[in-house]
């Protein structure tokens, strides 16, 4: 039972992790994207459509990433070049994505695809306990294991990461060295959207293996909460994603065992937990936030 819960947490948390990692990159660069839900939706449809047309789920992942990146590019244009309010722009893009996927998704509802299937890792999947929890999943789950530390490394140990973080902390330092803050933010936002798109694609082509209107059902907003919960740290994102994934999938295992659960209380867990963390560690959390992001918060009334 514990094994089922943990395996479910890993499976269900993966899409949230991708989106959360993407949002981390974006916010580290100083851009908050409430359109993450929309990027996931577009990614889910893009991934599904490409997989349906080509028969290759790997191309589907690419399609999902492109779709998510495209939506975030619009966000970048609005908030970086046009200096629109980031919250308003993000929500607008959410609605835009909702509409676009409803319009173009209709013809894919009834289609079947060659979806990802679980690929047990030889040897490792045999280990009692750990095997089924960690090593009996679809390939996107395994890639996520690597993605979080890699993104941490890129953000904190490479020049590229330094640029992104500087764009989010001290823009003037970036300018002094001759870099364009705008260009860096464009890249960070678009990369973030691509990851959210992969997260969405994970749901449609590796997890639920179908496309339905509005199928992300709030997981993108959970990812936004996750980034704050994890204090903009990719490694903590990983842990938090599995924690939130567990909250969502706990009900399955408990119900299967005949234990009554309140699904809504569990659904609220990611949000309540984040609020509690903020309340308890409020000042510390906000210290961890990129400075430019705080400015977005504080100057958000500029039109």
């Amino acid at each position, binding site marked *: 039972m514990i094994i089922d819960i943990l395996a479910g947490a890993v499976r269900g948390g993966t899409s949230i992790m991708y989106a959360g990692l993407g949002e981390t990159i974006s916010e580290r660069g100083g851009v908050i994207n409430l359109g993450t839900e929309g990027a996931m939706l577009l990614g889910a449809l893009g991934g599904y459509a490409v997989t349906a047309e080509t028969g290759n789920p790997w191309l589907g992942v690419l399609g999902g990433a492109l779709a998510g990146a495209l939506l975030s590019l619009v966000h970048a244009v609005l908030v970086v070049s046009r200096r629109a309010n980031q919250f308003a722009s993000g929500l607008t893009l959410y609605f835009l994505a909702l509409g676009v996927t409803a319009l173009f998704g209709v013809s894919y509802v009834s289609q*079947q695809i060659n979806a990802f299937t679980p690929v047990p890792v030889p040897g490792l999947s045999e280990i009692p306990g750990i095997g089924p929890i960690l090593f009996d999943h679809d390939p996107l789950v395994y890639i996520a294991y690597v993605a979080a530390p890699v993104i941490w490394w890129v953000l904190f140990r490479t020049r590229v990461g330094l640029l992104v973080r500087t764009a989010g902390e001290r823009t003037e330092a970036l300018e002094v060295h001759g870099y364009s803050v705008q260009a860096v933010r464009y890249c960070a936002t678009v990369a973030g959207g691509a990851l959210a798109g992969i997260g969405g694609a994970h749901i449609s082509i590796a997890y639920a293996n179908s496309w339905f209107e509005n199928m992300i059902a709030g997981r993108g907003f959970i990812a936004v909460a996750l980034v704050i919960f994890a204090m903009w740290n990719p490694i903590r994102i990983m842990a938090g994603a599995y924690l939130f994934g567990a909250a969502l999938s706990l009900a399955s295992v408990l119900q299967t065992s005949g234990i009554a659960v309140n699904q809504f209380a569990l659904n609220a867990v990611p949000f309540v937990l984040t609020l509690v963390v903020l309340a308890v560690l409020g000042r510390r959390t906000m210290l961890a936030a990129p400075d430019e992001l705080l400015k977005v918060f504080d100057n958000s009334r500029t039109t």
Partner: protein
Amino acid sequence: MRLTRTARVCLVAAVVITACSLAACSPAVSSPETGGSAPAGDSAPGADATTVGVIAVGPKDDFGYNQAVYQGVEALREQFPDLDVLEAYNIPEDDTAATTMESMVAQGATIIFATSYGHLDAAKQVAEAHPEVVVVHQGGLLDPVPANMGTYFGSVFEPVYLAGIAAGAATQTGKLGYVYAIPIPQTLANINAFTLGAQSVRPDVDVTAVSTTSWCDPATQADRVASLLSSGVDVMTQHQDCTKTIIEATEAAGAYTVGYHADASSLAPEGWLTGSEWDWGPLYTDIVQTAIDGDFTGSEYNANYRANMASGKNPFVASAFGPSVTDETKALIAAAAADLEAGGSPFAGPITAQDGTVTVPEGETPPIETIEQMDYFVQGVTGTVS
């Protein structure tokens, strides 16, 4: 000083708002609205209809409930080539439903099918505002029944009971899985009928019922199915609006599928046992014909119309069998079907609820109204009505 000033402003605002709203209320109270449009005089509701409107809660190709509605609509088109059929899918169960039906009426529809359980309130509202329009609702219960309204439904639990027999005969592990959305009486009756059917061939069977709290949330469905499969379930069925995710996951795991809403055997070529599916065409056609003839008011459809297998008109029918169903099982199902056609019921007593109370005593058969208000699981079901 500052605070008082702030407070004063708030107070003034509050007083202004309250006063104005009260002032606005008083004249309206004395003259509440009566009907949005004038009654169509002496003509019967829906008579000589040229336009029919249909609203559904989900997409028309969901391998499920809404696809069945769509197929019924197609049958209508075929039967009445001159009829204009307006369709609207993905209509949520809030005031949007009323708005949509209103705009269908505005476009000339004089017969309206509201096909989701939650569209009932909106349907009532539209029927009241337009006495000249026939509004029929799929699955609800009306009391009283207005002259231009009716509800219709099949005995869904009958083919589900038959499918339960197929499931009980097929299971190796004795564990059946049931993924449902929310515990409405129709769902509970289905789960119970399925369990009773399975028990009739395998008394020790366990039916694990899990809820997704949503009619279509594929990711949550995937999670529920994974968990059921991992607990040893080897026959899966469901009461969801979109059925694809669950069926494909079950097939991939090599377990058996019992379908619901529509024939989805193409999704599970190996594991498909049987299922229950809608065949709305004949009933939709007959309702529309009755209304066009001007005979709706007072007809059997101007009531809570329920068709069952005994009447031979149940719009909910058993699906075709899959490859693994044995002739022996088919014979058992045929015998049970014959019993239902002869007036038998899956809920013929004794029926015992999960907690041990006898809900239907030996020798009794509950009427359809009782079945449609079922609020418990029978013994043999694992799960709680929450």
